[in-house]
């Protein structure tokens, strides 16, 4: 859909050569849901400062891949390391690790009983031990940045979907994460709200944030991604830079997928 959606022109993709050391490394990761083999020997390395877009048909395992990185989904075999440290199994160590991995969900998942401001300050206060005043200053700065500072005292239900998702991004950024995971962040949004969320994501990418983005927004992939990972049937079928992938995909399945979504 909408592969040439207008995005800000100034947010160019940083050069690949600026990328740092490996940050997120998946090695031979396997997962089954009953008889369904949703992740099959997945190897994926994401470097510091890199923006990786994961695309593929529904049921291809891309969401599961994203959620397994901060262990919202457990894996059966293989290893996942973040900044050289294997993802812990449970308990405080896992909570500590999750604090370093920001996550943005398809359905926003803002805390329904807390104001926008409290949504953003909760993590810094409880998990990072910030004082209330420090957390509030940080939160207001981030809400300002994503353009919803004037909504700080409202409850999430009073905001539009696009505003809620921007708050969710601010909430994740408040933890000063090493990497941000986006699990179809615009799929639940009305079309006119998609760009306001993508704009925030593009500017994050331009600032050098490491990002793993599961999305159907081909415009975003072309604009901000260093690499596109195409998944189908639980496997990584093809990896390439966006230009190569969209103009000359190698695998038949990627060609087929692109021909279906890029016709309109």
């Amino acid at each position: 859909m909408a592969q040439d959606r207008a995005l800000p022109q100034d947010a160019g993709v940083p050069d690949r050569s600026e990328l740092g050391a490996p940050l997120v490394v998946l090695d031979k990761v396997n997962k089954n849901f009953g008889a369904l083999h949703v992740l099959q020997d997945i190897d994926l390395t994401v470097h510091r400062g890199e923006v990786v877009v994961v695309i593929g048909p529904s049921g291809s395992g891309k969401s599961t891949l994203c959620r397994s990185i901060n262990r919202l989904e457990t894996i059966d075999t293989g290893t996942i390391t973040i900044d050289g440290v294997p993802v812990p199994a449970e308990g405080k160590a896992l909570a500590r690790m999750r604090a370093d991995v920001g996550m943005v969900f398809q359905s926003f998942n803002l805390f329904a009983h807390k104001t926008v401001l409290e949504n953003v300050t909760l993590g810094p206060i409880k998990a990072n031990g910030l004082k209330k005043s420090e957390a509030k200053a940080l939160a207001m700065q981030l809400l300002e940045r994503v353009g919803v500072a004037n909504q700080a005292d409202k409850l999430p239900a009073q905001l539009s979907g696009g505003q809620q998702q921007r708050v969710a991004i601010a909430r994740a950024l408040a933890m000063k994460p090493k990497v941000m995971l986006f699990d179809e962040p615009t799929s639940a949004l009305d079309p006119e709200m998609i760009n306001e969320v993508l704009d925030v994501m593009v500017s994050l990418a331009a600032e050098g944030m490491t990002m793993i983005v599961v999305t159907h927004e081909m415009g975003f992939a072309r604009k901000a991604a260093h690499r596109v990972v195409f998944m189908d049937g639980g496997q990584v079928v093809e990896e390439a830079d966006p230009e190569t992938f969209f103009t000359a995909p190698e695998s038949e399945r990627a060609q087929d997928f692109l021909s279906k979504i890029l016709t309109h």
Partner: protein
Amino acid sequence: MDVLVDNLPSYWAGFLVTMRLTLYSGVISLALGLVLAALRVSPIRPLRGLAATYVELLRNTPLTLVFFFLILVAPQFGVIAPLGFWTAVICLSLYTAAFVAEAVRSGINSVGVGQAEASRAIGLTFGQSLGNVILPQALRSVVPPMINVFIALTKNTSVAAGFAVVELVGSGRRISQGNPGDAVIILIGVALFYLAITIPLGVIASTVERKVAFSR
């Protein structure tokens, strides 16, 4: 009707004992029930099993049997529970905690799974996530079933009358032994005193329900 007025002091004494039984058992069972509910949703499987076993065992045992167990069976294992007020509180608390745990658990289940995922994703521990995100939202749907549990508890305190605690029913029985002709009136008097506890509970429930309401 004179029999009610004449025996008001006896009624009042019994009423106070019933109130204290309800209050102490209510507070203890609430605390114990919350712990049990937390265990039932914890990430550690043996703890989940332990809590589930407790709930199933106590929920499916008649309250009278719980009393008999503590008074007759427990001493054989070296636990001496004297007949009286505190034994009744312990039995009522152990029994009611199972129902509290189920009410709280159903409330926890009513909160969308995304809320728990989001709180874990920002680095909150299990306890922080439960205390700051899940339970405050579960409260709204927990209040009505919880009030049912406490109304049942209020009435269940009458079982203690069979175990040497002179609460409302015990007082009623004593009064009617002295006034054999007025049994019906005396029992109606007992019922009215129960209503004096349970009706305010219902009013408190709807007030709390309005207070904790928020839009999702």
